[in-house]
């Protein structure tokens, strides 16, 4: 099996460890992952507020490129990219008028829109294509003793129902519990982290991040595991600001789910980019083979 890979801008910079750990996990499971050639920015949520047709065309260019490459499944790990690409796909499917317009625009670049490309999130691929049992069989280490808060963030499951529930997803919980870890009670698992509000309205966003951190810590989590680069940066890198602002003492590691999964699969810490996390993971992992 081989998947096309759409990293997205964040995974080239602030979320580099997500890129590294994703490649490591796919390699450890022997799944092919080929980067989409010459991909461009998905347009994110910012572009949507400038011009609808333009933003759809910009994001559809990626889907058209993927179609040229054989019309396979396109894996997008960043929640914003995932939701924007998926939304583009759905809008163009639902509205022939928009599709015609976008097709005309893509024609300027010598491309054609392809309806057969499927946009997938790596969590979906790992849990539903590869399967939890297959992953458990490949595990080298047990995650016993790791108490984590499963933080999905908002855009991986919304707005349309995708591969999991829109308010109470459980894919990640099931995956890591099977590998021995304990998911703590975390009712805020799909609560928004504020995203770009950290730049535009920092006060509002810091409040959201504080609530998330409080919820995780009070429920006894030793780390937060997330699927989204914006969540990771807001919840991890801004902990110091939250502490200063609200007189708190949070110091909880925030991992990408691929980093924790990679540990279970026996990847090295360097391959998973663990040294790039600002708050180091302290839980010692039992080396025992399952």
């Amino acid at each position, binding site marked *: 099996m081989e998947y096309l890979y759409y990293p997205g801008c964040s995974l080239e910079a602030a979320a580099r460890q997500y890129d590294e750990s994703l490649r490591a996990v796919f390699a450890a499971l022997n799944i092919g992952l080929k980067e989409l050639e010459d991909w461009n920015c998905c347009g994110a949520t910012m572009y949507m507020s400038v011009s609808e047709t333009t933003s759809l065309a910009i994001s559809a260019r990626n889907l058209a490129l993927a179609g040229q490459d054989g019309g396979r499944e396109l894996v997008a790990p960043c929640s914003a990219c995932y939701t924007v690409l998926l939304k583009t796909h759905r809008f163009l499917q639902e509205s022939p008028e928009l599709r015609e317009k976008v097709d005309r*625009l893509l024609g300027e670049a010598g491309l054609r829109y392809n309806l057969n490309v499927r946009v997938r999130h790596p969590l979906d691929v790992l849990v539903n294509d590869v399967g939890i049992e297959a992953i458990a069989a490949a595990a080298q280490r047990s995650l016993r003793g790791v108490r984590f808060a499963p933080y999905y963030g908002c855009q991986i499951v919304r707005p349309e129902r995708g591969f999991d529930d829109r308010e109470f997803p459980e894919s990640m919980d099931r995956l890591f519990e099977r590998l021995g870890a304990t998911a703590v009670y975390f009712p805020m698992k799909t609560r928004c982290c504020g995203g770009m509000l950290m730049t535009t309205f920092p006060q509002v966003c810091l409040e959201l991040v504080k609530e998330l951190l409080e919820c995780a810590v009070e429920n006894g989590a030793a780390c937060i595991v997330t699927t989204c680069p914006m969540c990771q940066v807001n919840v991890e890198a801004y902990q110091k600001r939250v502490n200063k602002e609200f007189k708190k003492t949070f110091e909880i590691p925030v991992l990408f789910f691929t980093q924790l999964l990679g540990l279970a699969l026996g990847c090295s810490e360097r391959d998973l980019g663990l040294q790039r996390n600002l708050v180091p993971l302290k839980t010692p992992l039992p080396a025992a083979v399952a």
Partner: protein
Amino acid sequence: MKERNRVPGTLPVSEWELRRKFLEQAELVPGGERISRCLQCGTCTGSCPVSYAMDISPRMVIALFRAGEIEQILRSRTIWICASCYMCTTRCPQQIKITDLLYALKRTAMDTGLYPDRFPVYLLSKSFVRLVNRFGRNNEPLLMALYHLRRNPFALLSLLPLGIELYRRGRLALWPSKIQGVGAIRRILAASQALEIPREREEPEYAKGMVGYRAVGQIPPAAAG
């Protein structure tokens, strides 16, 4: 606000213009017309993680749209505080795509230049678009620099410690990776600008009648000429 002494059930010309612009944008959203089905139940406001920071709640946005006060919506912080987590859209019992309609309102605001006073977000949008148009990809430090230089250069200083920490861990790319197909993107953009020229449009069904909610959107006969 202006033109207070207007005929009940009619709208001033400026508001009618805004309304036309907004409906044009809303029509681009598949299912956008469902805004007329709102029950005013308030589920959107109750579900919104940031509604406490808004001056007009999401439910009130729809109420004001119905009342013919789009300008008041555009001058509020609400549409720009939305972080697009889609919780309201998910829970709306009438399947109204509230988040996407807020985007339609944002575009109307950008088009008409109506913002609340001292207001930041459109600057971020514009900076983002400039970067993507130039390189085809986004770059976080450059985006922050563009945004803060135009808004408040001192804020850049406060970001410096975090920037250094991320840089030390190899999580800061100082320059975007430019894509090969950036020419193609510019051609797409140029062509899309031509498409954005307002097209001839028919009156939406519900603007034709003259009773109650339907009346909103009518040009007063006197002002129409």
